[in-house]
């Protein structure tokens, strides 16, 4: 990388850092903006509370409306109760008593219009959290707002009521009344109430809305998107069960988070199923999450492996409105789930402590937050803690999935690293192997060259020894003895040249054509036979090519036939010679017949029989069969059977080069 691009990159990094700092600072500024300027709106920390019984009615919008608008009856009042005020459940039961009477709580506040009130401003009443069945707000004796349209969400919606824009006179006393219908068995609560001009409270409302509804809703979308992403991964690689588990967890958790934001149904039978379905996701989530952790850390536990499915099934059945008790088991149900999660997290902690990876530790931290969030939410629901707070579980889901994403990311990065390393080392090994192979090839080539050289030297030696060498030596001896006529000497020298020519002819390329080889012999010797008055009958059939017929073998074949012919010339006194070559099954038969005087086989062999033995030796070299049949007075027949295919290599006399070859495999491996 050159200097300019390096500095450009550094500048980019600095710019990004500055931008990030600006963003963080901006957010801090926005968040630290005072939610309210105390001068213009008032927060009430106490109120007058009257509790009055109301007629029991059906638990739906119409029934609740009737109860909220009933005329006041006898009421027991307390002039000042502190806010937040929590009226805890009395004698809680798991199963609702349909005939149990309900009560209505009246909170009364007196708001004094401030001096700097701007005309046309609306009056806004806001309380972050309250519990009960439904509520209604009256300002100056007029019903301004109730929450009957989504009364089942009372538990997770702030109370907001706004008067019509009206002309309040500064200093005017305005009576604010909040009515909450509730079941004594479940109690009710109200957090502090802020009252003031609508404009001054808008910011506070928006922030609360964002934290309590928008973010949890966003978490649902995020979880669904992640689910789609993981599902895609799983679809592409089915063997990776972790992705399927994550997909299921995402879907389950997004369903669970639904209950924080979506309005429920007015009618109980729909509402009960809706709540049952959203609640039953909790044990499933716990189980799926546990299975995912197992994917990361494969230490197995029988208790958890069989206990978890049983727990999930039991809880799923219990929470659905099948046995009629489900609608009211909410808190107990959540408590059991939290306890199981706590047990699970203990186990995960235990795993993490005993040699868990970084992923497992991060997941542990997220789980811890999840359990804390669950406990917090239960406490809030039970009106024991943080009566104005928001629920944390939607955030816990994001934290846990963040941890999962981290784990998956680590896995991918690890896999990619491994792959990189693998291909690197593979390339390296390949290169090394290639070098090794090249070296071996080189060595093999050298050995082969050495072998060929040794082979050729052996062959030349043998040829010289057999042919030219012996003929020349013989002529030398004849000359030394001094009884040689020039005619004889000429013959000896001609023989030598003939032999040399045969050697050279054997080197001519014939591509395994025995016919051409024999033809060459005739071409050289034919005139000699003619001169000796011998008629040669030539019978050449179509012959299969002999693949083993290299120059050394060609020379042997030629020598055999040549020797036979020269024997005929010298000794037989024949007038007719018949040479035939034909294919006979897996062999080629070369037959040489003369009509000469013949000889006695047994005496020929007894008398040393060098010529005959020589022919046999040459034939054996070729793995051929040689038969000579002769009888005195009826000519001689020589029959050479050459195999078309040779099973093994020629039984060679050059042991040295063979030994070199035998060492080869050891050198290669």
């Amino acid at each position, binding site marked *: 990388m050159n200097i300019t691009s390096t500095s450009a990159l550094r500048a980019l990094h600095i710019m990004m850092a500055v931008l990030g700092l600006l963003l963080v600072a901006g957010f801090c500024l926005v968040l630290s903006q005072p939610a309210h300027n105390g001068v213009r709106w008032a927060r009430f920390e106490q109120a007058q509370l009257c509790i009055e019984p109301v007629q029991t009615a059906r638990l739906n919008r119409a029934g609740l409306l009737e109860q909220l608008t009933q005329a006041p009856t006898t009421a027991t009042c307390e002039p000042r109760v502190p806010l937040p005020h929590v009226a805890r459940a009395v004698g809680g039961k798991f199963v609702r008593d349909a005939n149990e009477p309900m009560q209505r709580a009246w909170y009364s506040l007196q708001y004094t219009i401030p001096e700097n009130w701007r005309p046309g401003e609306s009056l806004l009443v806001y309380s972050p959290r309250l519990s009960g069945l439904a509520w209604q707000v009256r300002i100056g004796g007029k019903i301004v707002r109730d929450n009957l349209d989504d009364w089942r969400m009372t538990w997770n919606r702030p109370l907001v009521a706004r008067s019509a824009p009206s002309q309040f006179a500064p200093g005017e006393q305005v009576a604010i009344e909040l009515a909450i219908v509730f079941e004594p068995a479940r109690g009710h609560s109200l957090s502090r109430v802020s009252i003031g001009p609508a404009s001054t409270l808008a910011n506070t409302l928006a922030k609360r809305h964002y934290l309590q509804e928008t973010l949890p809703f966003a978490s649902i979308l995020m979880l669904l998107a992640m689910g789609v992403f993981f599902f895609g991964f799983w679809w592409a690689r089915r063997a990776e069960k972790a992705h399927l588990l994550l997909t299921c967890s995402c879907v389950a958790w997004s369903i669970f988070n639904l209950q924080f934001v979506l309005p429920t149904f007015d009618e109980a039978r729909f509402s009960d199923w809706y709540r049952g379905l959203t609640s039953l996701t909790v044990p499933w989530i716990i189980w799926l999450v546990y299975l995912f952790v197992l994917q990361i850390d494969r230490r197995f536990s029988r208790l958890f492996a069989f206990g978890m499915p049983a727990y999930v099934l039991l809880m799923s059945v219990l929470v659905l409105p099948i046995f009629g008790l489900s609608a009211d088991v909410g808190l107990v149900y959540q408590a059991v789930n939290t306890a199981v999660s706590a047990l699970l997290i203990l186990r995960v902690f235990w795993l993490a402590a005993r040699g868990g990876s970084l992923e497992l530790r991060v997941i542990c931290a997220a789980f811890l937050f999840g359990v804390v969030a669950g406990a917090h939410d239960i406490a809030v629901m039970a009106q024991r803690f943080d009566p104005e707070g928001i629920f944390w579980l939607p955030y816990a889901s994001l934290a846990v999935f963040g941890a999962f994403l981290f784990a998956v990311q680590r896995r991918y990065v690890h896999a990619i690293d491994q792959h990189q390393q693998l291909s690197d080392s593979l390339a390296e090994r390949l290169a090394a192997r290639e070098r090794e192979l090249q070296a071996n090839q080189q060595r093999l080539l050298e050995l082969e060259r050495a072998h060929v050289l040794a082979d050729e030297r052996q062959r030349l030696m043998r040829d010289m020894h057999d042919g030219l060498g012996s003929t020349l030596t013989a002529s030398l001896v004849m000359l030394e003895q001094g009884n040689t006529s020039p005619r004889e000497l000429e013959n000896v020298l001609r023989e030598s040249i003939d032999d040399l020519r045969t050697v050279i002819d054997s080197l001519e*390329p014939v591509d395994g054509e025995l016919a051409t080889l024999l033809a*060459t012999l005739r071409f050289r010797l034919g005139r000699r036979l003619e001169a000796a008055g011998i008629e040669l009958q030539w019978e050449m059939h179509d012959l299969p090519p002999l693949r083993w017929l290299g120059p050394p073998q060609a020379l042997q074949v030629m020598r055999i036939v040549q020797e036979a012919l020269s024997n005929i010339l010298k000794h037989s006194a024949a007038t007719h010679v018949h040479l035939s070559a034909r294919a006979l099954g897996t062999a080629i038969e070369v037959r040489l017949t003369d009509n000469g005087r013949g000889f006695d086989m047994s005496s020929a062999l007894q008398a040393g029989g060098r010529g005959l033995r020589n022919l046999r030796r040459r034939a054996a070299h070729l793995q051929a069969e040689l038969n000579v049949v002769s009888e005195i007075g009826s000519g001689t027949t020589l029959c050479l059977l050459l195999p078309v295919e040779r099973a093994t290599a020629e039984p060679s006399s050059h042991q040295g080069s063979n030994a070199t070859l035998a060492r080869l495999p050891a050198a290669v491996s």
Partner: protein
Amino acid sequence: MTKIMIVEDDPAFLNRFCRIVMSEPQFEICAAVGNGTAALETLMHTAPDVLLVDLDLPDISGIDIIRETAQRYPQTDIMVVTVFGDERHVLASIEAGATGYLLKDSLPDEFVGLIHQLRAGGSPISPVIARVLLRQLRPGGRIPPVDNTKLSGREAEILAFIAKGFSSSEIGKLLSISAHTVTAHVKKIYQKLAVHSRGEAVYEATKLGLLAR
């Protein structure tokens, strides 16, 4: 009378060839030189009927002399004189334009007979050369195609017989032609090869190691 020119660097052989040629009344020697330069000089003003040339000359390759002669005097019969008559040398000579060859140790009557044969329009051929020509002029396949432009069917037939060792007279009998016609065919084939390879003569000679000495 047949005018014969001999190019041979070995005086003994030159002497021998001269004696053999002179022994035949129908022949006369028009020139006998011992090196390539002298041969080329002589060829400037003399047109022999038959040129006997040794390939292995001290100054110029015999191949060059053959080529020069074949171009200058297409009517001249060129005979190469070699020790072994091996494929390499004979083919290179034929490609340069020779139509016959002699072995240095040939018996005198063989020698004279071959010159006569050549004058009569026939060429000698060995089975190995026949085989190589068969391959070279008709690549691919043993059976000659009828519409072959390089080698006629009859020519290919003759070459195939020669490669299998049959003599001219035997082939003549088999094909119902005279032995002389067989050798005449061979001469024609040689000429075809020479024409065929004239374009690539230099390349061929280099390949055979005859020019790069």
